């Protein structure tokens, strides 16, 4: 029996020997059912590829993304040395695209951390404490929900000044309310369950109950929601970049690249088309992955 086979048997056991064993086994089972979803696997593959590209950008990029060669400006796709052509300043589009993946991942990663954590905090506290705290927190959440998201993000970026960090902050500020709503709803159902009463009787304080017994149960639906929201976050970030309110030139942010290419769209279509396809591919991958995760982690909403 080889090592991988015994590992597999260990993971698939019906009788876990320890807590860690049970957890790993559950994860492995989820992975097995996730693996049968081809579309979700495609999404995952694209995203893994994206992370690899971003990590090894200096090795992969054929040229410096900021190096301008005005003699070679607006070269079409397939030119010698410029696989995807060049932009209006003669910069290699492929290299800019590769470096731009770093910015996209940076924005998405930060928002995916800030927004759900804020929402989780607000939602669980509101749901667990209840009363006046609940009312005030949920009223605030409703106000942010009532605001049109892009317009609010625009106004925030305008107030804080353009730039990647402020774009991240603005998008997070508009993205957290749905998480808060969700976490609150889950907390309300969990709060009244017997096992919470049991640990309360054992003397657990609210802090321990919220962090150790409520949060872990909110996580899976939160993860699904985050993955499905990622596409929206990427599109919002690209939209801000396109309007000149996100990453600033000469940064190779994909939205800003579309905006640069916009002026030449009629004669030199590839300058705006290439980064647009990149945005599309990545957000599509997140959507596919999110759909698949929902089926695995949240079977009640998923399609059988």
């Amino acid at each position, binding site marked *: 029996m080889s090592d991988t086979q015994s590992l597999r048997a260990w993971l698939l056991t019906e009788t876990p020997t320890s807590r860690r064993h049970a957890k790993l086994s559950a994860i492995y089972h989820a992975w097995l059912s996730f693996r049968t979803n081809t579309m979700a696997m495609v999404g995952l593959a694209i995203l893994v590829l994206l992370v690899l590209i971003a990590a090894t950008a200096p090795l992969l990029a054929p040229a410096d993304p900021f190096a301008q060669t005005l003699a070679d400006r607006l070269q079409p796709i397939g030119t010698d040395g410029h696989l995807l052509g060049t932009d209006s300043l003669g910069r290699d589009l492929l290299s800019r695209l590769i470096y731009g993946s770093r910015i996209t991942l940076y924005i998405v990663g930060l928002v995916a951390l800030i927004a759900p954590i804020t929402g989780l905090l607000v939602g669980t506290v509101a749901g667990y404490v209840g009363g006046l705290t609940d009312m005030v927190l949920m*009223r605030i959440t409703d*106000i942010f929900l009532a605001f*049109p998201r892009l317009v609010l993000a*625009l106004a*925030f970026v305008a107030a804080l000044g353009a730039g990647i960090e402020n774009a991240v902050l603005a998008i997070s500020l508009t993205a957290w309310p749905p998480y808060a709503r969700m976490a609150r709803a889950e907390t309300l159902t969990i709060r009244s369950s017997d096992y919470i009463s049991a640990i309360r009787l054992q003397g657990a304080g609210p802090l321990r109950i919220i962090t150790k017994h409520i949060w872990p149960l909110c996580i899976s639906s939160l993860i699904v929601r985050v993955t499905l929201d990622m596409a929206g976050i990427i599109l919002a970030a690209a*939209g801000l970049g396109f309007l000149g309110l996100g990453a600033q030139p000469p940064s190779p942010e994909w939205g800003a690249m579309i905006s640069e290419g916009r002026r030449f769209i009629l004669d030199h*279509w590839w300058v705006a088309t290439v980064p647009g396809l990149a945005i*599309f591919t990545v957000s599509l991958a997140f*959507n596919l992955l999110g759909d698949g995760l929902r089926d695995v982690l949240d079977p009640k909403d998923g399609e059988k």
Partner: protein
Amino acid sequence: MAMATETQKGRHLSPFFQQSIKLAKILLSIAATMLGLLFVTFFIGRVMPIDPVLSIVGERASKEVYDAAYIKLGLDKPLIVQFFKYVVDVVQGDFGQSLRTGFPVSDDIKRLFPATLELATLGTLIGVFVGVPLGVIAAVKRGSWIDQVARVVALIGYSMPVFWLGLIGLLIFYGNLGWVGGPGRLDIFYEDIIPPVTGMILIDSALAQDWGIFRNALSHIILPACLLGYYSLAYLSRMTRSFMLEQLSAEYVTTARVKGLSEWAVIWKHAFGNIQVQLITVIALSYAGLLEGSVLTEIIFAWPGIGSYITTSLLSADMNAVMGGTVVVGLVFVLLNIFSDLLYKVFDPRAK
């Protein structure tokens, strides 16, 4: 005990009185949300690193002129007083003067809002008339190729950056094929011919029976409207599909089939009849989404609406215009949300 007396009291109240209490509650929650919105816009306007006094008096104004303007704007008063004044002004429909256009912001919004409304309405119509049937068919023929196509169409809609699709649309249908009018609402030589009645050119030109202008306006609006319609369609078809699936698995559908009703009657009369309220709610939400989501579309198509007004004002640091525009969009958004909530309560007896 206390609860029992409360319900007793509730029974003695006249239905009219109960209704008014309900209405008052709704109005109160609208007011609270609007106040919150105003607070957020006010806050944004305050933390803005641009000095509102300097943008009025200019860089080279003397100290006296600066101070006079500072006091005239009320900036020496405590923030809470300023906020109160702001709320009073907004309630009276006064958003201040736009620095960029030189008109009162409320006049600008009155002039530009119909353009946004026209675009979003047409987009929603396209979304409803294509998306809803697509969703129903996808649910009925679940797992078939048409269901797969609907799924892919929706996925692409969720993943495509709207400003990029708009650019590609312009490139292909305007630049290469010449099938549609370019950016803007009308060709330049058609502008300002018909008197604005509703501000929506399609309706105004139809009223004036000027079909040349109507055709021209249509050729300009069709591409951005289809673009917004596509996004609305992606969302509506998915929602319709999941609503329909829920109904089709219900027992009354089986009963209807057993009774020998035609498949058509089962689907459209029974199942579809039961999702109409949910559907209207979702359509209202998507309509609200289009009204605000048209910001990027309006910029791509140089469409003179609220979205492009807010963004161009932003870029020239015209905060009165930005705050006014944001408040109005927020108000419409809130009202549409409440409207859909109300519809639910009025037309769906299960929600009571």
